[in-house]
């Protein structure tokens, strides 16, 4: 039996004899090609269904946790983010109890600070962003008529990272060790031991860095999923709006999270090793953190908001009983917001004393971003106007969302004006504004989405009665809680205060806010109860219970694990409304891939613009390897928090090993034949490498994110150059300062050589000269290791001490970054060499080396920019 069979499909998890018996029954491998079957024959269909069911079955017993399919992982993801949200909600209520009266002593100052820090952190990092990923992992494949996302194991890995990191961060409060510097973690309050002793800030940084990895993994998955896994015929102009939003938001994650990761690296280097990035006494500047944090932090708001708007864009047409009005306008708004949201970050820094003209640029972009937002609201209004609206609980939450969000948007336009913001900034006015935006723009739509999609997920409709009660409690409670905050902010209540004095007019608004918060919480508990209450006796909802028009409603009730019975040909935006006999054709298996002839999990890959079928992609099945990879990687971050360096290194080795095993067994598998009949006379290849393959795209997208992080570090260098009177600083003790020219240039030469080795290895391999290719890969390993060593040797021999001044520290960071990329590149080339020697990589099956060559393009660029920055730039100034 080949390894491919061992690792693929649910068969692996059944007992040996059972497997053989099942395989005999299901006739795997002996089924005629799909094009030759008669789909009208019930027996044929029964056989196909049995095979599909078997292949996509979720693992049983404790092995359930080895599942990687989007349905299971998406469900865990959603449930976990809601659990974190409830936890953070309780923290919010604790704050409201503390603030309900002046000079209250329900919480101590220190504990209140932990509570508010975790409230913000958990809501943003562990609920708002993950819930997008969670819902998208569930919905996107359904909406695209795909059986799974292209990298199911990556989703599972991301989930486990998220769970481990989240529990670590949240758990800290039970030991009184939670971070207490605010979710924005401004240094020097948080970087210097004298202001923030203990592990709190480290837990925040390392725990969240780990979760950011999960977010980027999900972003890669979702971008490739949207671009390459659409059903045949679903051209860009026919894509469901949700998919457009997913594409935009995942793209934003790719450019927004890496700057924060770069910031985290600098931050943690300062905390752990005393490198003075944010210490003004040694040339550092706390403002750099603010820049990096908000370059992440403002797009983050839109990363949270757009997916929720996307849910509205799915719900509103269904209940307006017509297609959306102004499809192009929504696409404009989504893409436009995605771009403009990167030009807003300094509006969080209006009070930091930057020149007015600089603030002006950001004020301008902050006003401009209101235009696409208005467009989205008016697209919804226009759709409602042109349709005949049926009222329902989801629509109730949609209306509530619009009413609340519009208020948040309008106050947003106000605080975007710097002179107004100088008053409102860091007061309860902003607390009110952001809650109006985030709850109106995210929580209410998500609850609308729960009521809308639950019949699909859970098979039964949620209660109309409870839904209405929940809505009114939430809506009234929310406004009671947050409307008065506008007032308390304007009369002078700053944010993040654990108490306030009596007699300055703050008692009443705060008391009202606290009462409202509990009413709101009661509403949300009602929703939770409605979802969780036992309802065994209730009948199932009808299929497509709201009579919607998009593909996700093909889902059967109760759900079948295969996703779609056959992969449909789409020719309209709302196929269930606009294509005749559509559901029946899908169910009868009259479209593509109605079978799992070889017992493998398969989904279709199509082209970006017009979704022409390109490949029948084998996707991997359940495995615990992703779980172990996440556990070990999590252990690396957790152990580093407590400075247990030996154990950290050991677990790092285990983590790399787990990832390598995962890749070795589960990726770039050689199929038993070159192409496969997927039905309707179409034959598709089973293996593709290069720009048409999903793996190539994943590498490209990942490296784009990686390059963004690198650019953020380079930005740091030039930031210090700009704000320092002299940078690099003048000679210290008469010695020349800097990494010199020799070693960086030698390193650059070696990097270039390893890059060429990777390219030629790829080319020679594909031409069949396997021996030469192996030699080149081996040479590449040696060259890139030498390149990394030379990169570090430069600052080492010239005696740059990173703790002395920010200049040597930035040089070291860039050099280490490049060297790490060289080392990873060496590992990748060694991996390719091993694959080639093991016969898993051949001239025709060369995904590994093609993707590694792509990695090397980016690494060569990284090395070049690094050397240009640290060695050449100082000569030019």
């Amino acid at each position, binding site marked *: 039996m080949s390894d491919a069979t061992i690792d693929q499909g649910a068969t692996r998890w059944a007992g040996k004899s059972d497997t053989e018996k099942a395989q005999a029954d299901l006739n795997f491998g002996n089924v005629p090609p799909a094009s030759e079957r008669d789909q009208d024959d019930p027996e044929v269909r029964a056989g196909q269904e049995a095979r599909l069911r078997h292949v996509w079955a979720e693992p049983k017993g404790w092995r359930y946790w080895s599942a990687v399919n989007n349905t299971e992982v998406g469900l865990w993801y959603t449930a976990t983010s809601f659990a974190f949200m409830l936890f953070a909600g309780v923290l919010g209520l604790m704050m409201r109890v503390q603030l309900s009266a002046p000079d209250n002593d329900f919480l101590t100052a220190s504990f209140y600070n932990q509570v508010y820090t975790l409230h913000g952190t958990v809501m943003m990092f562990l609920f708002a962003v993950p819930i997008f990923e969670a819902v998208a992992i569930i919905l996107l494949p359904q909406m695209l008529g795909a059986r799974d996302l292209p990298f199911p194991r990556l989703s599972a890995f991301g989930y486990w990272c998220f769970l481990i990191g989240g529990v670590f961060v949240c758990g800290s409060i039970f030991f009184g060790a939670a971070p207490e510097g605010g979710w924005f973690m401004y240094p020097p309050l948080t970087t210097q031991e004298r202001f923030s002793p203990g592990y709190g800030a480290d837990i925040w940084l390392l725990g969240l860095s780990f979760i950011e990895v999960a977010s980027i993994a999900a972003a890669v998955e979702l971008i490739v999923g949207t671009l390459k896994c659409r059903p045949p015929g679903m051209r*860009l102009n026919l894509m469901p709006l949700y998919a457009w939003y997913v594409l935009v938001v995942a793209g934003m994650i790719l450019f927004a999270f890496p700057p924060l990761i770069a910031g985290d690296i600098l931050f943690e280097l300062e905390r752990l090793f005393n490198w003075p990035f944010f210490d003004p006494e040694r040339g550092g500047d706390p403002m750099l953190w603010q820049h990096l944090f908000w370059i992440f932090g403002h797009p983050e708001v839109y990363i949270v908001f757009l997916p929720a708007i996307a849910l509205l864009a799915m719900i509103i047409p269904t209940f307006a009983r017509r297609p959306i009005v102004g499809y*192009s*306008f929504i696409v404009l708004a989504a893409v436009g917001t995605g771009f403009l949201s990167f030009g807003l970050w300094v509006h969080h820094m209006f009070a930091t*004393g930057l020149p007015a003209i600089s603030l002006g*640029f950001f004020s301008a972009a902050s006003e401009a971003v209101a235009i696409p937002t208005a467009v989205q609201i008016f697209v919804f209004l226009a759709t409602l106007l042109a349709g005949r609206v049926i009222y329902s609980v989801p629509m109730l939450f949609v209306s509530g969302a619009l009413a609340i969000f519009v208020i948040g948007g309008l106050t947003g336009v106000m605080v975007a004006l710097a002179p107004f913001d100088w008053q409102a900034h860091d007061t309860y006015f902003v607390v009110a504004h952001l809650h109006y935006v985030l709850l109106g723009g995210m929580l209410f739509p998500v609850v609308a989405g729960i009521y809308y999609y639950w019949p699909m997920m859970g098979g039964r409709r949620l209660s109309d009665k409870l839904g209405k009660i929940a809505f009114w409690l939430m809506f009234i409670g929310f406004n009671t809680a947050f409307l008065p905050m506008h007032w308390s902010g304007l009369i002078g209540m700053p944010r993040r205060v654990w108490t306030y004095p009596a007699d300055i007019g703050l008692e009443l608004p705060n008391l009202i806010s606290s009462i409202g918060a509990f009413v709101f919480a009661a509403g949300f508990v009602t929703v939770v109860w409605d979802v969780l209450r036992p309802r065994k006796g209730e009948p199932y909802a009808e299929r497509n219970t709201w009579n919607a028009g998009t593909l996700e409603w093909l889902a059967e009730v109760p759900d079948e694990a295969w996703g779609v019975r056959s992969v449909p040909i789409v020719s309209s935006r709302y196929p269930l409304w606009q294509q005749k006999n559509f559901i029946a054709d899908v169910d009868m298996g009259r479209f593509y891939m109605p079978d799992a002839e070889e017992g493998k999990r398969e989904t279709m890959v199509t082209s970006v613009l017009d979704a022409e079928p390109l490949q029948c992609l084998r996707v991997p099945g359940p495995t615990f390897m992703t779980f172990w990879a996440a556990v070990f990687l999590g252990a690396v971050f957790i152990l580093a928090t407590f400075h247990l360096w030996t154990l950290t290194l050991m677990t790092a080795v285990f983590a790399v090993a787990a990832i390598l095993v995962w890749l070795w067994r589960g990726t770039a598998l050689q199929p038993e034949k070159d192409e496969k009949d997927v039905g309707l006379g179409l034959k598709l290849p089973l293996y593709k490498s290069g720009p048409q393959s999903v793996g190539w795209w994943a590498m490209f997208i990942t490296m784009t994110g990686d390059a963004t992080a690198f650019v953020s570090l380079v930005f740091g260098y030039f930031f210090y150059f700009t704000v320092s009177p002299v940078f690099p600083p003048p000679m210290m003790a008469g010695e020349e300062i800097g990494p010199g020219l020799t070693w960086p240039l030698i390193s650059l030469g070696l990097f270039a050589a390893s890059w060429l080795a990777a390219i030629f290895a790829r080319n020679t391999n594909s031409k069949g000269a396997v021996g030469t290719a192996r030699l080149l890969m081996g040479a590449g390993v040696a060259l890139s290791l030498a390149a990394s060593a030379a990169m570090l040797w430069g600052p080492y021999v010239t005696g740059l001490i990173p703790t002395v001044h920010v200049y040597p520290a930035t040089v070291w960071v860039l050099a280490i970054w490049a060297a790490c990329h060289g080392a990873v590149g060496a590992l990748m080339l060694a991996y390719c060499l091993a694959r080639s020697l093991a016969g898993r990589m051949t001239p025709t099956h060369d995904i590994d080396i093609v993707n590694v060559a792509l990695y090397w393009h980016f690494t060569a660029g990284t090395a070049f920019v690094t050397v240009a920055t640290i060695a050449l730039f100082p000569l030019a100034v």
Partner: protein
Amino acid sequence: MAIGNKTRDNLWTLITAPTIWGVHFLLCYGSVAYGCAPNENIFQTIGGFRIFVGGLTVVALAGIGFVFMRALGEWRRNGGRIPHEEDSAEVRERFLEFSTVLLAGLSFIAVIYTALPAAMMVDCR
């Protein structure tokens, strides 16, 4: 990408205009931040940087204008008509052109907004 009537639109052409906005924005902010650092002589005028921003704005607007006219022209000439919901590569092309027009419009306004501070403020206070 062939310029003229034969342009094949794709996701990259779609985001050209907002990308121009992004580059313009970063250059404006970067140059002024550099010109004002370390924020000492705050009442000294920074005419040179404002002229730079002005020139940059003209270039950016011209670029976006070109994208706008190109996409609009092709869309019109080929009988583009919303809502672009038919199933053909032709309509998909028209859809991308129309969306490019809208995005170029938004980017045009956003570039003008970005230039306003440089037009209205003369120093680094």
